[in-house]
């Protein structure tokens, strides 16, 4: 089977004459001559390149997803269906509601961000889960606009969200997805594979131990667009049965490695607010629509945002190779800077989160220069268990941005165990945390800032969870910490 086959604006396309690491954006603009989709950055951070992907495996049923075309590599499209801004309305047709509302609300000034904004609104039009006001911010978080100040764009989103007109795009969601056969594609000496079963996967990995696995490509794509990476062999995981979230009988979770971050965000909204809070400030909607749980962990960045929370939750990673499955505790997964316990020919198959004990107090924080779509200066997941006698029995404090790997704060944990659940205890933990880490200074924050914030978050954590075990985030918080009510009895904790 030679060539990537996908659907573009309703028409079948086969691409044979391109290098496999060509991005969808470049292909659209240069080969398909569809220049409506714009490049603003080629790093997933501006949204000008947004297109929509028909996601047939979304948890709530098939839906349109806004994604960054600058971070999609061609093999990832195999068997998929894409709509670009040109596909929304023909010259003789009325504008799509997502377009018309942008005209009506004066949502465009220079117009360069507009096609991307329209595609984000397009996703919003068919979404059924846009119930909470902050979700509109989230829906638009991946689209930078330098002209408008966003007010009209936000109003446009509010107007179309969930309106789901009974049009061709709605009907496309009902259509049966016909699975394509696996792809084995060789072009110019570079191989690209889209396996549909594990035999094919492990066969390729056996032959090419250095094959680059690609899940959402929101990390791998940057290697291509920013560092000019070329892969002799690329394997896209999207057609393998690795996606999905299952509640276990004990009340825990099993999360497939290619589960999209936006799937996870929705699934844990009510039952695991600490993880939901972290996901709310994770990248942007477009990034979460592509980025996967497995990619975030296997990328093993010290500033990956899931790891601190999963450290606090004491997750277990399920690794799979031709030899079968094995389980590794998250404490043992990150070995060194960008190095994990994954062996050659081994992939991450799933993440298991045990049930959260009834006596746990749990929250998570992410601090960055800008709240949405930014990388953490400091991120953490904090969990303590408080016994009936009011003493802390367990503590797991996972931090990101503080060391070469995501790491636990051992001294801070030690400072609270066996101590009363009080402001004083957390003030001591805050002090102890300064022995735990020796963070770097970079453009996201100085060592002083990181150390101070890490320490302050421990104080703030107590303040936040002393009355509510696992608080959910307010609609538009002034920080990652909740605004304590002025009436709080714990005012002494302030200093």
């Amino acid at each position: 089977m030679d060539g990537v086959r996908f659907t573009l604006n309703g028409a079948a396309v086969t691409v044979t004459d391109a290098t496999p690491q060509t991005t969808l954006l470049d292909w659209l603009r240069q080969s398909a001559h569809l220049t409506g989709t714009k490049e603003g950055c080629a790093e997933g951070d501006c949204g000008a390149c947004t297109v929509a992907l028909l996601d047939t495996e979304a948890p709530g049923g098939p839906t349109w997803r806004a994604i960054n075309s600058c971070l999609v590599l061609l093999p990832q499209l195999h068997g998929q269906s894409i709509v670009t801004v040109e596909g929304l309305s023909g010259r003789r047709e009325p504008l799509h509601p997502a377009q018309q509302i942008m005209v009506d609300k004066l949502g465009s000034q220079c117009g360069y961000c507009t096609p991307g904004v329209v595609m984000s609104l397009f996703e919003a039009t068919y979404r059924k889960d846009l119930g909470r006001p902050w979700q509109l911010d989230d829906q638009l978080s991946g689209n930078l606009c330098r002209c408008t100040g966003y007010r009209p764009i936000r109003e446009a989103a509010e107007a179309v969200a969930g309106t789901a007109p009974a049009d061709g795009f709605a009907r496309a969601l009902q259509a049966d997805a016909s699975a394509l056969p696996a792809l084995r594609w060789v072009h110019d000496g570079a191989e690209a594979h889209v396996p549909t079963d594990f035999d094919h996967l492990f066969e390729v990995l056996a032959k090419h131990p250095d094959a680059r696995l690609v899940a959402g490509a929101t990390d791998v794509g940057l290697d291509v667009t920013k560092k000019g990476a070329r892969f002799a062999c690329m394997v896209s995981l999207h057609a393998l049965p690795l996606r999905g979230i299952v509640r276990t009988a004990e009340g825990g979770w099993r999360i497939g490695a290619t589960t999209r971050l936006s799937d996870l965000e929705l699934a844990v909204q009510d039952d695991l607010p600490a993880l939901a809070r972290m996901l709310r400030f994770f990248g942007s909607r477009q990034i979460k629509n592509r980025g996967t749980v497995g990619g975030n962990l296997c990328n093993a960045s010290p500033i990956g945002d899931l790891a601190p929370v999963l450290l606090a939750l004491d997750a277990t990673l399920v690794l799979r190779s031709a030899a079968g499955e094995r389980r590794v505790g998250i404490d043992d997964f990150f070995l060194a800077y960008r190095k994990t316990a994954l062996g050659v020919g081994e992939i991450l198959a799933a993440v298991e989160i045990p049930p959260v004990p009834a006596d746990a107090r749990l929250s998570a924080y992410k601090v960055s220069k800008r709240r949405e779509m930014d990388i953490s200066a400091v991120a953490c997941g904090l969990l303590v268990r408080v016994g009936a006698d009011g003493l802390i029995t367990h503590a797991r404090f996972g931090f990101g941005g503080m060391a070469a790997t995501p790491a636990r704060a051992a001294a801070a944990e030690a400072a609270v165990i066996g101590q009363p659940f009080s402001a004083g205890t957390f003030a001591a933990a805050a002090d102890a945390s300064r022995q735990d880490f020796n963070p770097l200074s970079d453009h996201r924050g100085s060592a002083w800032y990181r150390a101070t914030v890490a320490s302050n978050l421990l104080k703030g954590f107590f303040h936040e969870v002393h009355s509510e075990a696992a608080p959910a985030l307010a609609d538009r918080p002034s920080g990652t910490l909740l605004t304590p009510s002025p009436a709080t009895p714990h005012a002494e904790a302030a200093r």
Partner: protein
Amino acid sequence: MSGAPKPSPLHRSTEHESAVQHVTGRAMYTDDLAGPTGTLHAVPVVSPHAHARIVGRHKAKALALPGVVAVLFADSIPGHGDIGPIVQDEPLLARDEVFCVGHPVAVVLGETLEAARTGAAAVQVDYEPLPARLTIDAAIEAGTFHGKPHVIQRGDRDAAWARAAHTVEGEVRSPAQDHFYLETHASLVVPEDGGTWKVTCSTQHPSEVQREVASVLGVGAHRVVCEVPRMGGGFGGKESQSTPWACLAALGAWHTGRAVKIRLDRAQDMGWTGKRHPFLGRYKAGFDAQGVLLVFEAELFSNGGWSHDLSLPVLDRALFHLDNACYVPALRFEGRACNTHLPSNTAFRGFGGPQGILVIEDALNRLAERLGWDPAELRARNFYGDAPRDRTPYGQAVPAPRLLRTWDLLRASSEYAARRAAIEAFNASSPFVKRGIGVQFVKFGISFTKAVLNQAGALVLVYSDGTVQLNHGGTEMGQGLHTKMLTVCAHELGVPKDRVRVMTTATDKVPNTSATAASSGSDLNGAAVRDACVAVRERMKLVAAELLGAPGPDSVRFQDGRVFVEGAQEHCVDFAQVALECWLRQISLSATGFYRTPGIAYDEAKGQGTPFYYFAYGASVLEVELNGLTGEHRLLRADILHDVGDSLIPSIDRGQVEGAFLQGYGWLTCEECLWDADGRATTVGPSTYKVPAVGEAPLDFRVELLPEAAQEGVIHGSKAVGEPPFIHGIAAITALRHAIQGFGEGEVTLELPASPEHLLRAIEAQRGD
């Protein structure tokens, strides 16, 4: 034709003229143009050093690569090798010395972008690094400046100091800011018949691109046409700095005889081109016991970068705005532009004005903090007023009541006093999170301060079917200029807007234009468009009067595509019929229009004159919430009342106010340009450089245009709007400082931009930890 004709589209909200193209992706930007068959791609090879001598350059390896067509160095330039908007002091391609990171040394032409990129990477240039000055302080120490000092002074300062009850002395460092227009620099140069070069460019200044391309190619301006379809944002960043890239593409086209396309990717654009000038302001202010300013002395230093570019006029505007809304009786302002080894800093919305204003706001904030006064009150006490309190430092009269009226209205509608009290109560009981409220006033001078630039032209073409093509000298970058010009034209000719098409800006339609800058686009071009339309209309009136059997041409009216005699609307002919009749009678249906702003003159040696035609005003109140553990903050509510005169199109002006505010806010908060010790920008993409995203915009965002504000002598009573509302963003600093005071009394020390880290430092200092 039945019913009354529709009223004029002037002063009515409407959609953007290109809105449908924008939302369908059919709007064409420079890089969307395919170019003719055989179009080559150009990629510059630039200096990785801030300052170095070139000791060798080698192209053989690059030329040997497949698809590489040519490698051009400085010696390939057929014409003049130096370019520049005012002073031609920029070697387009470095000869023996490079002066900043990103200084082009060569340009590589490839059959494909990939080939050109690979070729560029294979060009070897040998450097001998030289010492580099990167900062204002380094330039001050070395004594390296562009141009001469600019001084504005008046009054008896010694006497004023003797009377001063309070003095504030300080230093303000304003940050750089990247334009972050969504569309990066791009040009396409196509060789055309007869030795003509057609340059399509994303630029605010097509006439300058035309002039410099001609100069580099060694041909007359008549052999170069520059066209601007539209820009995906400009903000000043494409006023002078599109030119070098267009010239490099033209050079490539000259050598190969083929069309050449160039586009900087985001990292190149951010790493190689100039930004908003960072400023250092050192000041000393003296007040009487009531807080009324007696004397202000300030020295401003801007980081100009390696060439003049626009640094001197930017500095001028900073000096002209040091007073902002305050009358200062005795003063001395001096400004210098530092010569450093950074990409030359350039125009950016406000053009130095915001940097100047920040200085006086700092003095006012600190005095208010020290004495526990309301900063809004303190400012109002210092407003311009009746003579003699109506003269700016440079001697121009300020009609003051508009600012007072603006503040009176906004103070009431924003419930400023009650909210300030509520915030103080909230802060007293909230340990980690504090709120703050801040005001900002705007008095912004409108006109190019260089008088000659205040001119514009237009060309209107009426076809015999009654449709109209409108050409004017301004460029469209999202600000809605074309929408406004189309509306002015439709109004003057009395035709529905859909009969008018605003054409691509082109130097062969309207020559010798000024940059679309200084917020002057619609003032200047609007008047020129009116002039052109009136000329055609007057000719058409003569014919229409005959057709209608009118008593005389003066009684003929044009409205909504109909032509009729005043008071007898039902007896009308179609505009198209009149146009056709003109053609049949051999009467010209096209005309040029022209406008020059009267009365602008400034004597720099004396520091006195009238650099502005008028001032635009505004006031804003901003509320923030600040997290004391992390330094994060959020805008809770913004109230802005802004003076745009009698708005030509209120919906467009509101959009300008909102967008400018958020951009100004970003400048002082989340946006932070960083460089490494060798002068390389490290924030060269949106992954590291954070412009405001949707979450930064206040949810409660109340923008109003000042009512009953017609501006005499400006097109249909309107006022410029592009830059002035940027100043509202400064309210964030006053509001944040108020919140910081919630953590401890007294003067606040806050480094800019107010990033979470800088805020946390300020909070810790305030707490006395």
